[in-house]
């Protein structure tokens, strides 16, 4: 808000650049973009591209994989915004359940893509409602509530098709793995979701409600914010996004399997925090999610291309994540 007010003062070009740099360095997400850029260069130098056009193909792959992390990350971001203790640990299980049920329903029949998508969203909706019920009606702390419900969702997924891999309809698989004008379709979907999330968070009254709830729940309630409705919307929205991502990921990877969501537990939380949103809630941003998701993928591909063993790779991944978080938070502390 203050930024636009200052901009009205019509700065001279030189001041303008200085101001722009200053404003950028005050954005928490800039560090995530720098880290992602540095990793990209390092990965290119290490030769992950492999041959001509490698620079672009690495970027293409990075955007494809990042888009799944972005979609669950945005859901997690809204949950984390609600304040300390709010984390959704059921995202991986919800993804798996939605992917499994939807693919089983479609049974590789191209005519059933739209109903399949609706089923995946419906599963997400049901999971979100269940989580919200546990948290609000039974007053179970969100971490434990979503953890216990993830056990239930996982069991349901196992029971629903016993890990049988059913192929997605050809048209859907083509869409999920393909691209439009050089941009992966998965990234386009994620971009659409991000723009929507950005508008909700920054421009809509609902976004103010979510931020207010995260900053001080009591004050928000007294100020007339429908706190319970905000919690409802956020938890259900997060689960729906997880369901949608599960659907996309299953279509992308040629079928749902039972541990397809596992890595997204860490991923969804890591992209939120590395992206510069406050884990304490009440202060979030969407652009950082993209940077963090790209960074996480490029980091792994960079370490892969150096040909290191699994052990060393994991150690370096851990150390780099911790250092990025430590660095970013120091800069933020100074502002």
């Amino acid at each position, binding site marked *: 808000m203050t930024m636009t007010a200052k901009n009205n003062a019509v700065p001279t070009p030189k001041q303008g650049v200085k101001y722009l740099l200053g404003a950028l360095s005050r954005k928490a997400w800039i560090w995530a973009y720098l880290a992602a850029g540095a990793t990209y260069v390092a990965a290119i130098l290490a030769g992950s591209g492999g041959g001509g056009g490698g620079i672009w193909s690495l970027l293409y792959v990075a955007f494809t994989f990042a888009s799944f992390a972005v979609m669950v990350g945005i859901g997690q971001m809204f949950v984390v915004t609600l304040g*300390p*203790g709010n*984390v959704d640990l059921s995202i991986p299980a919800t993804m798996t359940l939605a992917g499994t049920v939807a693919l089983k329903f479609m049974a590789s029949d191209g005519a059933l893509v739209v109903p399949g998508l609706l089923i995946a969203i419906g599963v997400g909706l049901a999971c979100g409602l269940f989580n919200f019920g*546990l948290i609000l009606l*039974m*007053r*179970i*702390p969100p*971490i*434990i*509530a979503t*953890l*216990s*419900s*993830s*056990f*239930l969702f*996982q*069991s*349901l997924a*196992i*029971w629903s098709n*016993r890990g049988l891999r059913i192929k997605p309809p050809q048209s859907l698989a083509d869409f999920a793995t393909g691209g439009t004008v050089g941009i992966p379709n998965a990234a386009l979907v994620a971009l659409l979701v991000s723009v929507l999330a950005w508008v909700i968070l920054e421009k809509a009254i609902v976004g103010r409600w979510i931020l207010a709830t995260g900053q001080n729940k009591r004050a928000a309630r007294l100020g007339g914010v429908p706190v319970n409705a905000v919690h409802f919307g956020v938890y259900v929205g997060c689960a729906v996004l997880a369901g949608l991502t599960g659907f996309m990921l299953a279509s992308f990877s040629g079928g749902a399997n039972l541990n397809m969501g596992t890595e997204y537990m*860490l991923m969804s*939380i*890591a992209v939120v*925090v*590395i992206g510069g949103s406050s*884990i*304490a809630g009440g202060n979030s941003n969407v652009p950082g999610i993209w940077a963090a998701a790209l960074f996480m993928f490029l980091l792994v591909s960079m370490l892969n291309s150096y040909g290191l*063993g*699994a*052990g*060393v*790779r*994991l*150690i*370096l*991944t*851990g*150390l780099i*994540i*911790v250092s990025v*978080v*430590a660095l970013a*938070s*120091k800069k933020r*502390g100074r502002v």
Partner: protein
Amino acid sequence: MNRDHLRILLPVLSLAILLAAVFYLQPRAMSYFGLNLLFNLAVPVALATIAQMMILMVNDIDLSIGTFVSFCACVTATFVQSDPVIGYAILLAAILVYAGMGAVIHARGLPAIVVTLGMSFFWSGLAILILPSPGGAAPDWLRAMMKAKPPFLPVAIIAPILIGLIMHYFVKRSSLGVLLRGVGGNAQAIERSGWSVLGLKAIAYGIAGLFGVLAGMALVGLTTSADANIALRYTLLSIAGVILGGGEFTGGRVSPIGAVIGALTLTLAASFLSFLHLSSDWQIGAQGAILILVLAVRLVFTRREALA
């Protein structure tokens, strides 16, 4: 009956009910040998739960404890067994890393949930380096200790009781314990009265590291070998155990005895489900359901507590 007593009543009751159900389904479990089998794997879980409790006590959460216990198990099954001096040096260094992690988290105001997530990669990487494929062997004295058969009560019962009592006296009675709970309750007040919160957090994390090491060693003593993924479940089990035992995520409100009972309950829940001949599809789901059930009952208790 004060609030602390009420708080501990529910975990005790849920353990008792579950135990009665197991005995009803399988009367042969009601023996020295049966109890030992039922609770055998509870010892490392209880130790890991205490480690998690130390972290929750200072308002943080540790998502790396599972990989850390796996790492300690790998070190125990390799170095401690073959070159004890190097092995213990590694374990000591690991405890110091934990304490350092606590200090850094406090000094830089970092979110513990992310730092520990990152560290979980670090530990599992080290574990894979040390033990790329399952194997190793337990040191003889450790195996003998975990498999000992003292008169009257099996180790699986004695050890958790001892752990619970020692930690109860440490957390609830010693002055250091009070300070540590104070950090969780009101860190600013502790800082203003002249204590170093940085040092206290490092101590809390260091003790958590120590219990993580003990959990890894106990686990190897039971299984007699290790692999890099041996204890991944412990992260979630330990959090659930602390909460089941009446602990809370904030405010330094924890109960060591409750945490140990919570760990026993979770271990028993797994045995109970296998006695029920439940289809393996539903094993994890039923564990989730038991967790939800106990917490739902707790809601009734806390409502009453608020009224009283």
